[in-house]
């Protein structure tokens, strides 16, 4: 993940410098962003079944404000890749990521999505960070529901450290 400052015409807050107003806006915006994540589950395999358990009442992802699962990338800001991604599906995943509006974050869940797992073959992408940037990785096959919750908490801490002045760009 690379961070690139935007020109001042795009983000007028830069003109204010490190003033009191800008930092407060950052704190308020980050508070809103981290407590209202809208996940888009890119579920292709058994990790998606585990994600259903996270959303359900036993583990209840809504305790972290991320329960509103959207199946349109235009309405989501958290892409959860849960399952094996093949080379045939890689362009689809890349396009879904590009359709999501900024700011957007990515959680890669399970062995298949993060590294290909034991699919050391011609058709499986060896880790989705070959095609899109990933914020949080989860190990496990499939990961436990608590690991999903832990990833959400880590992502919230990461969002807290971000600033509106920086734009997250795809590494090209």
């Amino acid at each position, binding site marked *: 993940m690379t961070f690139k400052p935007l020109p001042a015409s795009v983000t007028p807050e830069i003109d204010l410098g490190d003033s009191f107003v800008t930092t407060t806006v950052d704190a308020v915006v980050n508070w809103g962003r981290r407590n209202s994540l809208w996940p888009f589950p890119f579920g292709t395999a058994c990790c998606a079944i585990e994600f259903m358990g996270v959303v359900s009442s036993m583990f209840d992802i809504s305790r972290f404000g991320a329960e509103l699962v959207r199946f349109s990338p235009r309405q989501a800001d958290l892409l959860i890749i849960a399952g094996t991604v093949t080379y045939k599906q890689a362009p689809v995943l890349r396009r879904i990521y590009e359709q999501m509006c900024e700011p957007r974050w990515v959680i890669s869940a399970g062995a298949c999505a*993060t590294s290909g797992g034991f699919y050391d073959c011609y058709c499986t992408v060896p880790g989705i960070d070959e095609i899109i940037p990933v914020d949080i990785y989860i190990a496990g096959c499939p990961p436990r529901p608590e690991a999903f919750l832990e990833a959400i908490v880590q992502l919230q801490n990461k969002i807290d450290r971000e600033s509106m002045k920086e734009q997250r760009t795809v590494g090209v």
Partner: protein
Amino acid sequence: MAKVVPRPQLSFWESIYFVEIFKGLATTLGHAKKNLLSPDNFPTLNYPEEAPRLPQDYRARHRLMKRPDGTPRCVACFMCSTSCPARCINIVAEESPDRHIEKRPVRFEIDLLLCVFCGYCVEACPCDAIRMDTRLGVMSGDNRRDFVIDKAKLMDWDPKDYPLTDVQSQKAPGGSLHQQALEEFRSGTYH
């Protein structure tokens, strides 16, 4: 011959659905009332405050078993890395100073992002050197390098976290049976 499923015969009150809707709502509200009045029986696990209850034989993060003198029990035979379907175990062997033991691992790394937690390494190990009973099932982070755990981290476990019936863990340094294990080790009855 297809099986004919008869349509259910609805009574008058069922066929207008209106009463049935409120029956369903009564069920939902009954559950809501039950949960509100007895929050102790609430099914939700409050994860960061409340630890997950995992069974002892849950296949979680690995650990390396130790001899009573603190060295790893692994003899670097590469059985685990050979049987691993994801090839996530990386071992570098060297000659052991003990003349009864041929080799020992100088590096023992497991890539947890590659690992599929199948337990084949535990099955394959001929000397019970690798186990997956740490019950550390939650692994997430923002850096790939943090997931490659080395020999020191694999051997960083406390015998107090394991039951007393797990004698092999208690014989490691710091365990409750440590002195007894040392005596067994010196007298040659340790195995």
